[in-house]
């Protein structure tokens, strides 16, 4: 480059760092080839601006190095956009984000690919910066956003996994849930917390395994008549060494997500679900047709060749059953270009084998290499009207390797392009190793494992995780709440009997009422045009009408109908701390009154013979929702149940949504025409880790809607006299507020009868 011109440009760059001088020429050369004259002006102007922020030479250097490429990709207007963004950042407390911001630009522009999207990306970053930059009033100090630099460090990975829209959702979630908790925010944006990963997975583009697990199970059952236990592994976190599918005794490992394969015109060639099916069909074919052979007898090259031919063999056998698989396999198989690998300077072993595999798979392979064609011939000769065998493949493979062996195969420089066949498993099942390693660490491993298993056995029921509705975003927080179900510890059943004794009069009245309600099995329906029997009375009347010249009533038949009660009921008791209060004008706590009411109700329902269960719940943050089993559907209203009911205690908070969902999961398993979930509570849903009072109310409302969709009728009995404000919001019209709590024991059974009668 012209010294004079360079000098001229160097003067335009108002930045005196000497460190820039070394690379300036290279940068300008690149700028010269990719930018217009005006572009170069802007480029140097932008770099001067970046220099002025006063953060050393590094930002300027990164700017100078990266921007020509970026501008070429996104258009030259981004030159000033980026420098202005850096300037803005430097005027905010978030100056520490400038280096990672500049470092992320090259990757981001490459992934986003258009100026418009890039602008949106910048907006997203500034939005995040604004919302998470904190200040403490009175101290006049501002704190930089804890999440922004971490997010920027992860941008290449995130944009690889997510669309910009997905990234926006992922960021929004973090901002919304951890605005004032710096450590959790950091965990979220550095992808360390569980919900961060869960949201990432939800927003991931492509075909998710979890969404399609049933489909794949059905596929295996329908087409191959097998059942596998499938375990997904994450493809996202290992950039260097991509995991591949495999299977062993524990199950089949498959990727957690697969993208559709698109061609240059963005037309979908192979759908993600078909890629899963290809993986599974390949594995099934191995399971059906492969026999393990002893690995110690073969060299590593021989082994890969045997694996390749064995893969081809089992696929051919699978395609004999389902010819349509061929088109899927071909679309997923890489197409190595015949003369692309130079066997003088690099190791072509992978290239040769991939070509061989492709030649076997696709009859229109178009290769002319005589060794490959000959081996292909031998392969098809072996497969002609037979299934051949793994050992026969081994002998073909060995002779192929022997024939095509080059000195350069040993070279460290391996040809990798177009040789990775990612729907095939890694073939660990194919080998038997005689010489097992007897390293000491293996013993340690085993001991450790045994210990772990023992530990796990001691624990009680594992927690169940339920999602929670966030009304702000209109989305679920995945696996947000952990619910622990336990058997309620028993107390003294005689206490409950004493309670019933006390209400003997009420119980007697109830009993009379219940006798009336008991189903009368056979009901006659009269006045039917079609029926099982002639109803003589009406028939004769009609006949007389007819004979006397009037129009007869044609409804002269009658039929019968079975009228039985088929109701399953679940009573869910709120056992939060507020139940220990004594309502004004009463000498008993709400808990005692509830106990009496539930005893009477249970007595009534047992008498009716409906399916009935009782459970209590309380919560202490989302990590611990306690669900206490008091009566199950198969248990009778006996001493065991009474003992548990006698011992109920109140404590903690009311996180109702998860409890409702868990109760519904039991109710859903019942066989009944009508399913009724009664919730007995004394206040609104609330928990100590939730500041927004509306959040849990909205979640409960959502839970009630979910239950409704599952055919479960939810009804709330609320003991809070001021409940009208929120209870209607949650339960619609399905609630009753009992103002005078001392009436509860009397009202509850009557309510039940009127609901179900």
């Amino acid at each position, binding site marked *: 480059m012209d010294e004079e011109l360079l000098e001229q440009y160097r003067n335009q760059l108002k930045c005196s760092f000497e460190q820039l001088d070394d690379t300036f020429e290279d940068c300008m050369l690149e700028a010269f080839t990719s930018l217009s004259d005006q572009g170069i002006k802007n480029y140097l102007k932008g770099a001067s601006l970046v220099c002025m922020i006063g953060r050393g030479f590094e930002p300027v250097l990164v700017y100078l190095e990266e921007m020509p490429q970026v501008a070429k990709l996104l258009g030259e207007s981004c030159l000033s956009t980026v420098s202005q963004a850096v300037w803005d950042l430097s005027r905010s407390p978030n100056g520490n984000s400038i280096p990672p911001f500049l470092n992320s630009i090259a990757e981001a522009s490459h992934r986003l690919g258009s100026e418009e999207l890039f602008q949106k990306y910048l907006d997203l970053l500034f939005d995040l910066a604004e919302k998470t930059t904190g200040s403490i009033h009175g101290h006049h100090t501002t704190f930089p956003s804890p999440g922004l630099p971490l997010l920027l460090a992860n941008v290449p990975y995130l944009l690889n996994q997510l669309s910009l829209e997905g990234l926006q959702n992922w960021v929004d979630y973090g901002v919304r849930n951890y605005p004032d908790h710096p450590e959790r925010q950091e965990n979220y944006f550095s992808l360390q917390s569980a919900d961060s990963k869960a949201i990432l997975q939800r927003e991931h583009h492509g075909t998710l395994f979890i969404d399609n697990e049933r489909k794949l199970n*059905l596929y295996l059952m*329908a*087409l191959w008549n097998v059942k596998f236990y499938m375990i997904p592994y994450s493809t996202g976190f290992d950039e260097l060494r991509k995991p591949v599918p495999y299977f062993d005794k524990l199950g089949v490992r498959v990727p957690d997500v697969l993208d559709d394969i698109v061609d240059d015109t963005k037309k979908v060639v192979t759908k993600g679900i078909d890629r899963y099916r290809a993986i599974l069909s390949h594995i099934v074919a191995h399971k059906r047709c492969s026999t393990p052979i002893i690995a110690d007898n073969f060299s590593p090259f021989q082994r890969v060749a045997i694996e390749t031919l064995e893969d081809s063999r089992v696929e051919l056998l699978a395609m004999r059953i389902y010819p349509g698989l061929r088109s899927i396999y071909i679309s997923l198989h890489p197409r190595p270009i015949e003369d692309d690998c130079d066997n003088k300077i690099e190791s072509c072993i992978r290239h040769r084998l991939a070509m061989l595999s492709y030649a076997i798979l696709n009859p229109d392979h178009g290769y002319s290499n005589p060794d490959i064609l000959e081996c292909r011939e031998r392969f098809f000769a072996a497969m002609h009207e037979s299934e051949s065998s793994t050992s026969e493949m081994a002998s073909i493979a060995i002779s192929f390797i022997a024939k095509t062996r080059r000195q350069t195969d040993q070279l460290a420089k391996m040809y990798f392009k177009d040789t990775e066949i990612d729907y095939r498993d890694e073939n660990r099942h194919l080998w038997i190793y005689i010489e097992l390693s007897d390293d000491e660490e293996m013993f340690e491993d085993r001991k450790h494992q045994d210990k772990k298993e023992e530990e796990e056995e001691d624990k009680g029921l594992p927690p169940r995780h339920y999602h929670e509705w966030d009304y702000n975003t209109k989305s679920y927080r995945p696996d947000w709440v952990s619910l622990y179900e336990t058997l309620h510890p028993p107390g003294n059943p005689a206490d409950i009997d004493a309670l019933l004794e006390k209400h003997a009069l009420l119980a007697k009245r109830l009993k009379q009422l219940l006798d009336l309600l008991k189903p009368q099995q056979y009901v006659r329906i009269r006045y039917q045009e079609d029926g*099982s029997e002639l109803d003589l009375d009406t028939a004769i009347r009609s006949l007389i009408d007819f004979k006397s010249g009037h129009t007869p009533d044609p409804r002269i038949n009658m039929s019968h109908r079975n009228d039985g009660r088929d109701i399953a009921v679940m009573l869910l008791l709120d056992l939060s701390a507020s139940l220990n209060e004594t309502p004004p004008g009463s000498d008993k706590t709400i808990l005692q009154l509830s106990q009496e009411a539930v005893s009477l109700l249970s007595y009534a329902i047992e008498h009716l013979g409906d399916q009935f269960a009782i459970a209590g719940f309380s919560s202490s943050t989302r990590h611990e929702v306690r669900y206490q089993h008091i009566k199950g559907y198969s248990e009778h209203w006996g001493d065991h149940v009474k003992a548990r009911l006698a011992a109920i205690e109140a404590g903690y908070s009311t996180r109702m949504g998860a409890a409702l969902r868990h109760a519904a999961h039991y109710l859903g398993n019942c066989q009944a025409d009508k399913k009724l979930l009664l919730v007995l509570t004394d206040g609104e849903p609330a928990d100590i880790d939730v500041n927004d009072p509306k959040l849990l109310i909205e979640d409960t409302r959502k839970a009630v809607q979910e239950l409704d969709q599952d055919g479960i009728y939810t009804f709330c009995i609320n003991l809070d006299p001021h409940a009208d404000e929120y209870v209607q919001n949650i339960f619609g019209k399905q609630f009753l507020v009992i103002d005078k709590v001392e009436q509860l024991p009397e009202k509850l059974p009557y309510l039940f009868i009127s609901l179900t009668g």
Partner: protein
Amino acid sequence: MSDQNIEQYLINEEPFYQAQDNEVALYEAAYNSRLPVMIKGPTGCGKSRFIEHMAWKLQKPLITVACNEDMTASDLVGRYLLDANGTRWLDGPLTIAARIGAICYLDEIVEARQDTTVVIHPLTDHRRNLPLDKKGELINAHPDFQLVISYNPGYQSLMKDLKQSTKQRFTALDFDYPSANTEAGIVAKEADIDIETASKLVKIAESARNLKGHGLDEGISTRLMVYAAQLMNHGVAQNDACRMALVRPITDDADILSTLNHAVDAVFD
């Protein structure tokens, strides 16, 4: 009953039936002793076709009644109808069969209510008669009369089962879908299609039958395969014909639809 009326119940052309086992001989033996026969099997596996074939082979009239829940005893036996002069008796199909000596075939018997099916009892044991209590008549069955019932043990609910007292009046034949080769032969013959396509259809059907109990109540029947083949005969593309005749009728479940669609594509490449 005039001869002309009997004529309408006779089957003149041989219905195609491919025997799977010795069921033809077994049925003939049962008929020779006039034993009532019960035929069990999944839907569309050829139960009705088998009875038609046997009626043709034995040259006996066949009266078929499709049972349903609203059917009453009088729908089988007969009832009084009112007319201008008062009332008039009309024989039901069971009564007609007993009078003319036909094979009476009650299809899907469990769909009828249990109290209805009890009226067949006197015809199915040594008495072989049918009392018409409303009319005050006792019909002794014609020597050629035979009762055949069929039902599908697969999909009915617990509530719908035959009473033991009904079950134990019948000899039974158990039908299932034929083996793959036989079934392909049946589809090829019935729909006039080449055997290779027919075997592919059978392969799809088998994949659906594997899903029985996992979201499907019934697999793809032989009958549906014949429909698919007939559609192909009219120039419909193979994949489309399979989707229309085999996949869509049997399920609304999106996952199963997708799996079976894939099976169609995998078989017809």
